[in-house]
């Protein structure tokens, strides 16, 4: 299963200042570790919201709002896309990440991505029944 791991913005990240080279190096090592474990599908850092925009939808109306945006803690500063076996595993990997913003508090949010693994919705009734029978047989139920 896949998880989107989002690094929430901070006051510093919103200034657009580049991170300390030491942190860049640590992040590089961490990304390498993720890749070597076959966990990392993608990942990128985002410019501050002052270089972005929002499009507000309201009925048929579209309103463009230029950044920056005030609610810093709700903003995203970067993301990874993980492929792991469970939320637990995603959490363990995130805990091993270097602190993205040393010196200030920040949060990293982990969210599961919808994908084919959630295939129950398209599983035909016959297929579901067969699967169930097999599972029953294997677990020793009648």
């Amino acid at each position: 299963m896949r998880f989107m791991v989002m690094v929430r913005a901070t006051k510093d990240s919103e200034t657009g200042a580049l991170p300390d080279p030491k942190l860049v190096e640590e992040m590089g090592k961490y990304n390498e570790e993720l890749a070597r474990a076959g966990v990392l599908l993608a990942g990128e850092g985002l410019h501050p919201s002052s270089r972005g925009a929002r499009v507000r939808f309201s009925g048929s109306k579209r309103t463009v709002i230029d950044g920056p945006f005030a609610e810093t803690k709700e903003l995203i500063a970067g993301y990874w896309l993980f492929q792991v076996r469970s939320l637990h595993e995603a959490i363990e990997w995130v805990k091993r990440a270097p602190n993205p913003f040393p010196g200030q508090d920040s949060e990293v949010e982990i969210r599961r991505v919808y994908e084919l693994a959630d295939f129950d919705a398209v599983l035909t009734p016959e297929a579901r029944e067969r699967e169930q029978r097999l599972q029953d047989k294997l677990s020793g139920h009648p």
Partner: protein
Amino acid sequence: MKASTAGSVAAGASEVRDAVRTVFRMESARLVAGLSRLVRDLDLAEELAQDALVAALERWPESGVPDRPGAWLMAAARNRAVDRLRRESWLGRRREALAGELGPSPAPAPDADGAELGDDLLRLAFVACHPVLLPEARVALALRLLCGLGTDEIARAFLVPETTVAQRIVRAKRTLAEARVPFELPGGAEREARLASVLQVVYLVFNEGYAPSSGTGWLRPALCEEALRLGRVLARIAPEEPEVQGLSALMELQASRAAARVGPGGEPVLLLDQDRGRWDRVLIGRGLAALERAAAPGRALGPYALQASIAACHARAPTASETDWPRIVALYDALAQVAPSPVVELNRAVAVSMALGPAAAMEIVDALSEEPSLRGYHLLPCVRGELLLRLGRVEAGRAELRRAAALAASARERKLLLERAASGRPVVREAPASPRAAAPPAR
């Protein structure tokens, strides 16, 4: 908001146990790989790893999950090995070799040296996929040792009883011990052959998930994901091997189509009919990048890289009608050279029919008609029937499609073929060109 300081004493006991198991599974391959280099015995290495897990289950609920859990587990396993060495005599002949390596030296951190870790994992992969083992034993051992899956999980994935898997693993280890398979990284031709066996096992796992040979016939995403992950790991630790990159590319590209392969009613959707909007762009991007790495200058592409190249042609085409069929024909020509098989020939014929028309393809298909391994294979008359219809030989074509229907294994496919036989119209129209599936060249 519920905040639990993960790993702290505040976290519930069962929560910590879950965390321990998760961490163990994440670390188990490196742990067993590192330990088996030290003790040169798979069984013992696994036992020591298990001992380390038990120690973690005892300690971590109190102490919290350590900062470097992999290093902690390795150190625990090594201590355990030293204890045993001191206490027990059954280690016998291993004693001398062990004493040197397991001395008081500090435990090497499993994440300290990428190259060493890569070699350990590769060595473990070579042993788990050793040619002296039967294919199903290799698969079970690889999933257990390289993916850290439990026997119960492997059994569930393959829809066989757990005892069967457990027996396979026990027997496989015995076979390895009896054959005195060394823990080594072979060089030259031997390395090539052993690597081929590893790749074959990974692709087998992938296909079992992608096109299951038994059970419900349904995708098993977990197996595909394990294979993809193994492929990515191997591509990282053996980046200089074109076929490792080729296999990774092939799996990424095939997996990119997973969501589009099945219709709303659960029916299979042929490649050329698939909604390309549902193809996974992340996986396509990864697949194309791996394929680029597979193309080593001055070396001909191997079978996996060639199949990946064919898959890439489809991935690159914005619509089915924009498929570069001449290039696919050339790639099948190359594939038929390096890995000839009747099925490759049949797929080549389909590609030729799309690139050059039905008459040229008919020659290839007719040459296959006496092929014993395709006797009873419904796709042969299916392709032939379609070609006959396209050539205007309607009655002969309908007869072939009915023959294909009689051979088809699934009721759904039989129905589809009988409908096509009844209509008597080819799926592909000659002009204006609107290429649709003549037969499934790939899924």
